């Protein structure tokens, strides 16, 4: 089969979306972690089905006030991240950086309010299976938010040093994907841990 050029002549190195290795790595990581979240939610409902009273006596149902506030902050951070991602897709590094910084700020708000909630919760994880699963679900997710925030720091530094361009943006894409993933999973977890015991 005669080809005018040698195979692979002129093939691009920097790609985005499903062409990039980074996309696939993050996508598969998302599948794995989704399996973990599904396992956690299933365990929650399993323990609920096993119990006669839920939450057990002497344990208050979760309050919704502060959680609703930080949920909004988390959702906002996701929106900021997406706007920042759109900016770099169009090649605008500076805009991307500012929106990502806004996203980081929102995440910090989330984490501070979360820390306050944990510090003032009147039960620890070792009181019952209910408190155990509640703390583990909430803590596991908060750890993910912390991870998202921490990984934005080197990204900010590299952006400041001019590493990212419209062509070379798959890392930003991947980071955004994961950010939205962590934000999105919060809603089913919120519904399970905060909403459900209040309305069951």
């Amino acid at each position: 089969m005669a080809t005018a050029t040698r195979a692979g002549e002129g093939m691009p190195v920097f790609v985005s979306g499903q062409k990039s290795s980074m996309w696939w790595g993050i996508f598969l990581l998302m599948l794995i972690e989704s399996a973990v979240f599904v396992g956690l939610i299933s365990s929650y409902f399993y323990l609920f089905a096993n119990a006669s009273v839920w939450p057990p006596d002497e344990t208050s149902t979760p309050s919704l006030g502060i959680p609703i506030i930080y949920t909004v902050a988390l959702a906002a951070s996701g929106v900021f991240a997406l706007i920042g991602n759109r900016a770099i897709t169009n090649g605008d590094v500076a805009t991307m950086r500012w929106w990502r910084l806004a996203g980081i700020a929102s995440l910090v708000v989330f984490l501070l309010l979360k820390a306050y909630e944990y510090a003032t919760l009147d039960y620890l994880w070792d009181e019952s299976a209910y408190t155990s699963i509640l703390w583990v679900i909430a803590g596991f997710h908060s750890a993910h938010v912390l991870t998202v925030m921490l990984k934005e720091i080197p990204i900010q530094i590299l952006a400041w040093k001019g590493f990212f361009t419209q062509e070379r943006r798959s890392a930003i894409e991947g980071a955004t994907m994961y950010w939205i993933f962590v934000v999105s999973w919060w809603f089913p977890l919120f519904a399970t841990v905060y909403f459900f015991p209040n309305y069951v």
Partner: protein
Amino acid sequence: MAAITTRAETLLATWEAEAGIVGWLTQVNHKAIATRYFITSIFFFFLAGVSALIMRVQLAQPELSIISPEVYNQLFSTHGTAMMFLFAIPMLEAVGMYLIPLMIGARDMIFPRLNAFGYWVYLIAGLTVWTSLFLGNGPNAAWFNYVPLANSEFTPGLGVDVWTTAITFMEIAALVAAVEMIATIFKLRAPGMSLNRMPILVWSMLVMSFMIIFAMPAVMLASVMLFLDRSVGTGFFDPAMGGDPLLWQHLFWIFGHPEVYIILIPGLGIVSAIVSAFARRGNTAYSLLSASFVAIGFLSFGLWVHHMYTAGLPWMSLSFFEAASMSIAIPSGIAIFSWIATLWGTRPQVKTPLLYVLGFFFVFILGGITGVMVASIPFNHQVHDTYFVVAHFHYVLIGSAVFPLFAGLHFWFPKVSGKLLGEGMGKVAFWLTFIGFNLTFFPMHISGFLGMPRQVYTYRAGLGWENWNLLSTIGAFVMGAGALVTLINILASIRRGEDSVPNPWGAGTLEWAAPSPPPPYNWDELPRVSGRYPLWVDDEHGRLDPDEDHQHILEEDAFPQHPHRRETPGTRLLDSRLERSAILAGASIFPLLAALSIAVAAIGSMLTLWLVPVGVGLAYFSIVGWLWPREEEW
């Protein structure tokens, strides 16, 4: 001529690892990492095998006291844990890791540093488990650690914590390898190798990897919950706190059942490759065969309750799981008949790889049949937790993994080393292994019928179990001898084996077009394929292309476009059309640093929980360093 030499030299300079200890610690090449996996898992296999031999000596006669019950319980728990997590999965993954790039025409896997990271994590896991056993603190609540026994109240000490730590490591290593394989298979296949032209072995590795992704998280979750129950007083499994011991069983078996099919499916892939090569014919019903792997993968997630039939769940709800458990024999049947049809009338030469495949047929089919039997609820109520089940799962596990691995070893050894394994020794080892295996495990069906439960360090005289146990013990040593002969064969052949041509079996898949052993960069010129068996002119009759240079599939390509960068073609998922030049990572110390950081967190957690944030912090910096762009990337 001069141009080609320069090209090979350029490639070598780019892809070769540094010499010395630095090169060894920063190595990321898939073949080197796979070789490390092989050697390490063979080592752990022998350790686990010796553990079994010690147990068999203790059980050879009633009421012996060769070892104490505590030591026995550690031995059987570690044997199971090590065989499943430190031998079977890593070894099968290593087969994929070595062969996939060669079979799909790529220069390496898609995330080379992740590969290396996976190995270090695995090595640390294995050393942790075996060191603790030698120190008398091995896992001791069975490989499945049922609670409440595995809780700190009933099993204090480090044993179960070693288990939860090792599981965490093993999950990370396996998940990493799975991600690696899926992304590589999806995105780095040679131009023209659409999904329906991939070798069946690659299909099996793909299915295995997806199964790992969905199954491993369940056991990771369970082991973290167990660790928390033991260390910080959570109550997931404690009935007094509103928890449920059955939650552990569900989570564990939701992982545990797919796990055994994770082990089976790559074994079936190996068998398919060898059958096709020896029959000199493409796998009959290729689409049905690959679909049967996918079907087994899906179905295996719906069977787990068959490990819990006796737990007191409502009996009629168990029937669903009985039906599903029996049904999974059907895709297995498709695979078996595909191989029979492929072999039909071809009169293959019965060399050692095919001998082991025949052994696989015998052992696995027998095990599969006892599997349909134990799927029956009323029958299961009698044989659950007896030696009948021990017989069943050794037949299916050794049948589906060990025999294919031995077959694959003899089959691909020439490609990996450039030498042939001794054929005479191979046959002797086969018969010792096959006869020894059956002598060990067939009598266990009978001692199970006679009422012998499993996981017992001794038994009373007069129940009729003595003679069968003695037979098993003798068989175990025969089997051990077989494994030893294979090991000797490997060591001898590496030094003084007969040199091999690149394609000693006349097989049709791409890896046989690469040199033996392949250089670090695998291909001088990258392949382009237009059929399932690129080296055969005719799929039905396996006629080799007489051109040894494989001009019709290898062509000079534009890679590397960027000298001194490790490049391989990136293609589209479905039809494998060229779409980019994938730059692969080179040598790096960060995989090792990241693995050590996680070790600080996980192993440290057994000493004090404060080491967890320390380890995590170190891991953070390792990962930042790992991903930080290097000079040439700016």
